[in-house]
């Protein structure tokens, strides 16, 4: 059994969640080339190590959140609400939420 720490509900069985995917930065549609869009849609780093990914708590609070998880050991070292974490002066609405990456994550 794998436990995931939901920032709202606390630790829950991973069967309560839906995996959304790796956090990837959405490119600017005004300037992105076809190759950049392809990478955004289909290319994932899939590291054997720490990665930052988004999950949805479908059987609990029904909220999306971000988790830093080790893909080999399934250890989790942080979880947070994406919008609150990603709000910055240049992104006050947190629209690029879930784009942070773990320090050991691979390129991409």
């Amino acid at each position: 059994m794998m436990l995931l720490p939901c920032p709202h509900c606390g630790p829950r069985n991973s069967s309560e969640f839906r995996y959304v995917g790796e956090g990837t930065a959405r490119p600017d549609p005004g300037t992105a080339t076809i190759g950049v869009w392809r990478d955004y849609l289909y290319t994932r780093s899939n590291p054997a190590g720490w990665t930052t990914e988004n999950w949805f708590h479908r059987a609990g609070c029904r909220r999306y959140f971000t988790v830093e998880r080790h893909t080999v050991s399934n250890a989790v070292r942080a979880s947070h609400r994406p919008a609150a974490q990603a709000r910055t002066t240049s992104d006050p609405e947190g629209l690029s939420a879930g784009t942070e990456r773990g320090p050991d994550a691979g390129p991409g």
Partner: protein
Amino acid sequence: MAESAAVARSPIAPTPPVAIENGWEVSARRSAADLRITDCTPLTKLLVLGPEGGVFGIPFGRAERDEEGVLVAGSGPGEWTLFGPPGTGEGLAGRAAAALPPDEGAVFDLTHGRAAMRITGPAAAAALARVCAVDLAGEVSPDGAAFRSSVAKVVTDVVRDDIDSQLSYLMHCDRAFGQYLFDALLDAGAEFDIEVDGFAGPGI
């Protein structure tokens, strides 16, 4: 031909004998067993959406009764479920809407869309633990705790709502899963000699 009043039916088949209570077909069976399960679908159930932490003064994860005996459960961030006696939906919805900030939030009557049931007795936690992974120990889930989790693989809202100091959990799920969840809880409680106890108003 004589006119007959409409009867509302729970998705959970009533255990005989059957009676009509506040316009609902319910089981009139009475049980004094240590562990009992009751179909509480006739209860009025309202979903209230509003600003997180800003309504009713009840946070996510807690449930309390208001001055009129309505059970208000913080069932999600910015989400509350109100349980009232059968047939009180309209008045309760008006009160809930009045508690919301102007032009913010919404109230939905889920009475006929959700199945509710209550499991009561000293072994209620042990029986529920057979089908629910959440820690039900008193330190973690005391009286007044509310959470949504998987119960027998069904997404279920659970409120610990002790009755006369007797351990009791009030649960509700999508109507379509009502009979399945009721049967799963009967199965989980079989080793504790669970029995069906009929619904009696006001029921909350």
